């Protein structure tokens, strides 16, 4: 068992998301920082879609009741194992009774905590273990983890430590222009890509809300259409919302852009008050960025296999 001693702000079980049910109004859900979550699973030789724990802000505490190996990736939330500082992006071994804590950080928002072979007996809802907090299903009884919750896992013997260097988090976010950006005046269209955007406190797993000195307020209306994580909507108040994984499946605000899939991880790490910039790219550049990330993961997989062979 893993006992959740302190659950923190919003600690929840996520995998790569719930696919194929959007036409029924079911959100995608799933980890916001896919590269981090997949790396954590690769470090443990788990299938890449194994459910992990997504930690937002930090301030949580877990107790291992059996020995196993685990990995932490994503933002550096100053994790410690029974008092000893851990490095983000590494695999470690925990003994029975060890306590894993996450503090907090000014530079990142979300960390991922995976354990070898994953958690057992998590129910699959519509082919996913992701917690959909709004709808109240998935994860552990459809809710974020709370104090005293327990997650079952199988005991594992010691694996030696290994770390992964992951691409850094930056504040430059690549965007493909959206179908309704032309409805804005030319100078306003340009300013979307020239000014910096500040993250507002109302941001959550449904979307990142942004504001800037530019006034993009409008009275345009469109018929609601399909939206997905990365869609940049512009509500009438002119403050864009970049939708994240828990977003609804349709939306009725003009779509000014779409954040490329490879850069969604960057958005997921922005806390309220931090700023970011949008840079316009085309589909070829987006595809190139995705390919680079896939190569990065493939290399990590080979390195971990090699390391495991050498050390057995």
């Amino acid at each position, binding site marked *: 068992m893993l006992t959740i001693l302190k659950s923190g702000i919003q600690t929840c079980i996520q995998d790569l998301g719930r696919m194929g049910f*959007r036409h*029924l109004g079911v959100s995608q859900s799933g980890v916001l920082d896919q590269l981090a979550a997949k790396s954590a699973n690769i470090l443990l030789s788990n299938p890449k879609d194994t459910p992990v724990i997504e930690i937002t802000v930090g301030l949580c505490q877990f107790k291992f009741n059996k020995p196993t190996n685990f990995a932490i990736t994503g933002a550096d939330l100053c994790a410690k194992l029974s008092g000893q500082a851990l490095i983000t992006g590494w695999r470690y071994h925990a003994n029975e009774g060890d306590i894993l804590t996450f503090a907090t950080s000014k530079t990142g928002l979300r960390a991922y905590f995976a354990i070898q072979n994953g958690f057992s007996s998590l129910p699959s809802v519509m082919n996913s273990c992701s917690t959909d907090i709004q*709808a*109240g299903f998935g994860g552990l009884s459809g809710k974020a983890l709370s104090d005293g919750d327990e997650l079952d896992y199988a005991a594992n013997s010691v694996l030696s430590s290994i770390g992964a260097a992951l691409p850094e988090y930056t504040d430059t976010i690549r965007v493909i222009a959206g*179908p309704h950006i032309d409805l804005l005046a030319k100078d306003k269209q340009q300013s979307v890509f020239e000014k910096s955007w500040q993250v507002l406190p109302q941001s959550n797993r449904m979307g990142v809300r942004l504001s800037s000195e530019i006034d993009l307020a409008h009275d345009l209306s469109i*018929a609601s259409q*399909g939206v*997905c994580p990365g869609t940049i909507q512009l509500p009438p108040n002119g403050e864009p919302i970049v939708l994240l994984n828990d977003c*609804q499946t349709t939306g009725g605000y003009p779509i000014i852009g779409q954040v490329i899939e490879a850069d969604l991880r960057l958005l997921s790490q922005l806390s309220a008050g931090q700023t970011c910039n949008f840079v316009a790219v085309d*589909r070829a550049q987006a595809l190139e960025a995705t390919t680079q990330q896939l190569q990065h993961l493939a290399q990590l997989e080979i390195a971990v296999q090699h390391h495991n062979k050498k050390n057995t």
Partner: protein
Amino acid sequence: MTNNKIYILGERALVLEITQSNLSQYQQNKLFALHAWMREQKVFIDIVPAKTTITGYLMHSQDPEYWLDKMQDAWQNIEPESFEPTVHTILTHYGKHYGPDLQSVASLTGLSQSQIVELHSQCSYQVKFLGFLPGFAYLGDLHPQLHLPRLESPRTHVPKGSVAIAQDLTAVYPSESPGGWRLIGHTDTVLFNHNLDSPSILQPGDVVKFLPSTEGIC
């Protein structure tokens, strides 16, 4: 022939939009026939119909232009008659505590409560699309005499199973949630069960009829 726009949103979402504010029944059925065609291609992770659009999310982002062309061709050639909807009957208790807004809807429309029940239950509706909540189906078109804006201040808790109206649409709340639609009745029919392989009873394009229960207002 209908006017349409077709484009790629982001890396892999293909969007077909019919450029008019309301679809005719012919266009609506054509859109659902296209939905069925898209499912058969087995290249989309998700296909999301909305009011005047359909969005298909490709499994791979390698070749969206190719599929965009195929989708455009399919739209030109598809027969709306190829779409055959499933019909559902939803037993509904109207008024009293089941539909706490029935009385105010009556005074706002100048109709009696039983006239509202009659207008609401006499016609068949089509599931235009789902959204907002898992299993929340937007059903149209509501009788013009029943068109009212949403409540000025939404309720924080709308009970599961509430039958509601807003503008030219009607819907059943599949789960408890906040909501601004006017509640005129209630059904015990479970519309969404996340533990089922097919979790939603209502699918895009399905036809829905409301059957007034003898218990309730009439």
